């Protein structure tokens, strides 16, 4: 399979301020064929949080590591919740280093940062695993908490949208993983999992919310948004993608937000 991804900040923000994260293993160029299992995750840090992008980054890496260690993590809400709690444990260490670095740089935590640091950052997360066997059949598993989505397409059809299935289902209070949430049962209640099989030629798109809402809206109108996305992901064309996003936002087709997509192309 081929993998590629694009990540663009909301209009008016710099790339450094983008709080969406995509992480794919093994890392490879879009034109490189991968025969081994592929792990991919996207996360969307909440704008109101402090260090949301850093938390999203740690979260995606943690859940992928957990999935590599135990492929059942994406099939079992309890195991996925454990991976989320473990990511939170890692956050405590990360945060201690961050605070120490700020002190050392002569820029201690300001009064207006402290309440948000105490609350901890929030992010959505979606992680997936794709494993193709010798007969070219692919098994896939996905787990999510929040409104980042996975879409499975074949030719001109959208086969599956997960975990949200319509553009109307999005709002600005999605389910979020808080770095200090140790309530395993609560996290597990909000985790959704799905598994399936796919054929050679099928496509998967992992998207954060604004793009996912656009995707579902376009599909509901009878369009085939996966073809639009494929043009940019296959060519690895971030500039063209940005121009297209700007137009879509100006036309009111997409909310102005950070945008991330991972494309897994089964060839």
């Amino acid at each position, binding site marked *: 399979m081929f993998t590629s991804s694009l990540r663009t900040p909301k209009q008016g923000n710099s790339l450094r301020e983008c709080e969406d994260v995509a992480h794919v293993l093994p890392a490879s160029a879009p034109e490189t064929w991968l025969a081994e299992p592929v792990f991919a995750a996207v996360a969307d840090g*909440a704008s109101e949080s*402090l260090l949301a992008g850093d938390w999203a980054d740690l979260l995606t890496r943690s859940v992928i590591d957990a999935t590599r260690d135990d492929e059942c993590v994406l099939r079992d809400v309890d195991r996925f919740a454990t991976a989320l709690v473990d990511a939170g444990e890692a956050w405590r260490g990360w945060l201690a280093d961050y605070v120490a670095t700020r002190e050392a740089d002569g820029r201690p935590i300001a009064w*207006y940062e402290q309440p948000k640091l105490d609350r901890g950052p929030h992010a959505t997360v979606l992680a997936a695993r794709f494993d193709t066997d010798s007969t070219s059949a692919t098994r896939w598993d996905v787990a999510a908490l929040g409104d980042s989505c996975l879409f499975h397409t074949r030719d001109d059809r959208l086969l599956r949208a997960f975990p949200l299935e319509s553009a109307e289902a999005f709002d600005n*209070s999605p389910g*979020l993983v*808080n770095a200090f949430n140790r309530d395993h049962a609560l996290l597990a209640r909000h985790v959704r999992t799905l598994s399936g099989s796919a054929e050679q030629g099928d496509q998967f798109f992992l998207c954060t919310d604004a793009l996912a809402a656009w995707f579902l809206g376009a599909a509901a109108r009878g369009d085939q948004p996966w073809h639009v996305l494929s043009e940019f992901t296959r060519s690895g064309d971030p500039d063209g993608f940005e121009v297209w996003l700007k137009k879509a936002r100006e036309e009111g087709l997409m909310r102005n937000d950070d945008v991330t997509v991972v494309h897994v192309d089964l060839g």
Partner: protein
Amino acid sequence: MTYAAEISRANPSCFVFLVDQSASMSDPIGGGAQQRKADVVADAINRLLAELSVKCAKEEGVRDYFHIAVIGYGHTVGSAFTGPLAGRDLVPLSQVAEKPARVEKRVKKVPDGAGGLVETTTRFPVWVDPVANGATPMCRALSRAESLVSDWVARHPDCFPPIVLNLTDGESTDGDPASAAWAVQTHVSADGAALLFNLHVSAAKAVPVMFPDTDVALPDTYSRTLFGMSSLLPPHMRFYAMQQGVTATDLTRGFVYNADITSLVQFLDIGTRATDLR
């Protein structure tokens, strides 16, 4: 759709706080609390500015999603900022956050996780000190707010509409404030008319009221006048008010009587909310 404009650094909005600093503000607030009205209002302003700063804080500092003016009215009408911002009117929020007059340490009680309370120290920035001196020129204060709002929407025609929040004991001494209040709300951006909200602090021993949709429970002419001057809450604010337990209807107004108005900050949308799972 109105009141849906994105609030961003490229398209900021503004807040104008009007603070009653008249002599009558030295009277105690009703309801048994031992605080003067001037202390309650100064605390409310300082909390609102702190909440706004925290809401807009990111790693690199506070983002200028809002510009802030705090206008005092009493002996004079003018900027109520003390400290480094003294004398200034509309100030970018990042500068507000960086330049309080001082940061006090205050003790507050927080849940201890075992059903009890434990005392902890928090940092409490102060921009506005309590003042109680002179008459209550509310009409002049509203005219000053109108001037700031008018200039703001001229320079930011697509902004989320400016919000004017008047904190007072309600006893205007320079005429009926209703027409000056209406004038504030005639200034519109492409996203809607400027909003005027009121916090009434009163010495009367009446039941506190938050965001009512009628004035029948209000105790006097002053509170009913302020209720009538207040804008209807836009739909998304009603939604957030309901999330906080307020029974909001189409007629709910941005008016609070002898209660905490800090929750107003939570009615503002600057992106994905950091909401905990339930």
